[in-house]
């Protein structure tokens, strides 16, 4: 067993994802405590040049092979199993992304390493990790340890600052040949979102609506309020899934990350996947009928009320 903290690097279009920098910054400080190294593991094809942007790592393990030209859960898992098995890091940090979920749980089952999911904080205690996880849609927090002192954590995006892990450097680069691959899951293509009528990432006021809206017809009330505020309407996932608003208006993990001056969260409970996309807003005002909705833990102002009562009153007050 080593005292190293390993990070699985995610990249797209030749650039490292922010979530990787978030993990690297954390890995660096944890490794300093455990007296090990922050080790980044980079898989891809023609990606050796990316190692230089992983300066927060002490060491970058690069598996550069045409088999990893695009992400594939099966190929990544097959290649990572021997790396994690042989190096025995005390902790492996993986982003709680689509790709990360597959790889982390796959590694956990293949190597019988425990996995702590939905992590929002990781500390070292006596050289072994302690992980805080969000459960029950953010309504419960669990603090866990790995029974044998080592394990994997999938980390919710935005839990740690990316700045601490970004920046150039000259980590030791170690090229490793892929000893295994698995072609049973094949990448075909990437679909990018079509440009919508409104770019919610550029709006300074967002009036965002969730399940609490109840009925599609009530969207008129939300549109009227957005108009009175000179803002745009956005939503949580259920509204986009129902087809009530286009996918381009969806805020959150699978949608867009927004940082408006004002974010009005109306009838949005605040599942972790949603908070991931909006917690950086300058001012968050939440209206929800459930006093224990997790949205109130990130909001600056909150009101426990039915949005259908508050919204018309607010629109009227604003002269809309």
């Amino acid at each position, binding site marked *: 067993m080593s005292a190293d903290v390993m990070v699985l690097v995610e990249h797209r279009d030749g650039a490292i994802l922010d979530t990787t920098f978030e993990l690297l910054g954390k890995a660096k400080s944890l490794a300093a405590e455990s007296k090990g190294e922050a080790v980044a593991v980079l898989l891809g094809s023609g990606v050796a040049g990316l190692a230089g942007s992983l300066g927060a790592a002490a060491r970058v393990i690069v598996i550069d092979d045409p088999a990893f030209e695009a992400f594939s859960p099966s190929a990544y898992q097959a290649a990572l199993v021997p790396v994690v098995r042989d190096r025995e890091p005390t902790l492996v940090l993986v982003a709680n992304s*689509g*790709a990360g979920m*597959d790889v982390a749980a796959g590694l956990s089952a293949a190597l019988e390493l425990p996995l702590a999911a939905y992590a929002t904080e990781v500390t070292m205690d006596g050289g072994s990790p302690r992980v805080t996880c969000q459960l029950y849609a953010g309504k419960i927090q669990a603090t866990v340890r790995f029974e044998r002192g080592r*394990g994997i954590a999938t980390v919710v995006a935005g839990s740690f600052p990316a700045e601490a892990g970004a920046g150039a450097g000259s980590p030791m680069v170690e090229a490793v040949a892929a000893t295994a691959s698995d072609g049973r899951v094949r990448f075909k293509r990437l679909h990018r*979102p079509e440009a919508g009528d409104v770019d919610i990432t550029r709006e300074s006021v967002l009036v965002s609506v969730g399940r609490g809206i109840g009925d599609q017809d009530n969207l008129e009330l939300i549109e009227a309020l957005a108009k009175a505020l000179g803002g745009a309407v956005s939503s949580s996932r259920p509204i986009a899934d129902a087809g009530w608003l286009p996918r381009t208006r969806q805020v959150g993990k699978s949608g867009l990350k927004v940082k408006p001056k004002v974010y009005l969260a109306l009838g949005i409970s605040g599942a972790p996947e949603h908070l991931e996309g909006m917690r950086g807003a300058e001012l968050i005002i939440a209206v929800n009928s459930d006093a*224990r909705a997790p949205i109130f833990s*990130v909001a600056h102002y*909150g009101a426990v009320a039915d949005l259908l009562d508050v919204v018309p009153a607010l629109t009227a007050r604003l002269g809309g």
Partner: protein
Amino acid sequence: MDYVVLLKQVPDLAEDLEIDSAGTGLDREWMSFVASEWDEYALEEALHLRDATGGTVTCLALGVQAGDVDELLATCLARGADRVVRVGSFEQSPDSHSAAGAFAAALDGIPHDLILTGVQAIDDLDGQVGPLLATRRDLPHVSVVTHIAVAADGKTATAHQEYAGGVVGEFELDLPAVLGVQTSREAPRYAPVSRVRQLMKTATIEKADGGGGGSGSGLTIEAMAVPESGATAEMITGNPVAIADRIAAILAERGIGAGAPR
């Protein structure tokens, strides 16, 4: 095409969750249970796929004493599943590793070309059942998927995996395989309560052994807590008009909306 759907029940979040006296778990005494939301999407997708390709849908649910797994399985039948199986016998909801182990053992006796389950559940502290099960059975897997389609020859399937920013990766998988379903093409269909009640009396709910249970999650839960709600929020009270007035004033201070200094 034999489709298999893995389901479980989870605490109903419409009710307040309380921590038990040990401070390391939920107080289950008065807890009520519902089907895990994402598992319901998985079932809905399986039913659509079966209707397109022909074949069967078999639903497997964890046999947990708390909650009502038979009602869940009868609901699956009412929605159109062909066969339902209660897997294992657990006093409480098992962790994901144990659940994956039980499902993996049960699959020995159940034909499966495509296994669908919810991408996640609100209680999967030790990871998601789909990829855990897939790896135990050495099957390929993709999580966070939508847009599932099975090829005409029945040998492969395609699915979309969601990433941040609305970006989607399209994958082709060799079957048999496991998919963690994010959402279904249509909202889960309604099953009339009367039909579910009737099926609970008349339908056959098979039982499958969940195997030895495995070694568990390997996690030690030190503490569970309700995060301090509203820890950062200043709560606005009063009737809707008073709330609206206060919000308008807060916005006006920042130069937003009518009444704002110009």
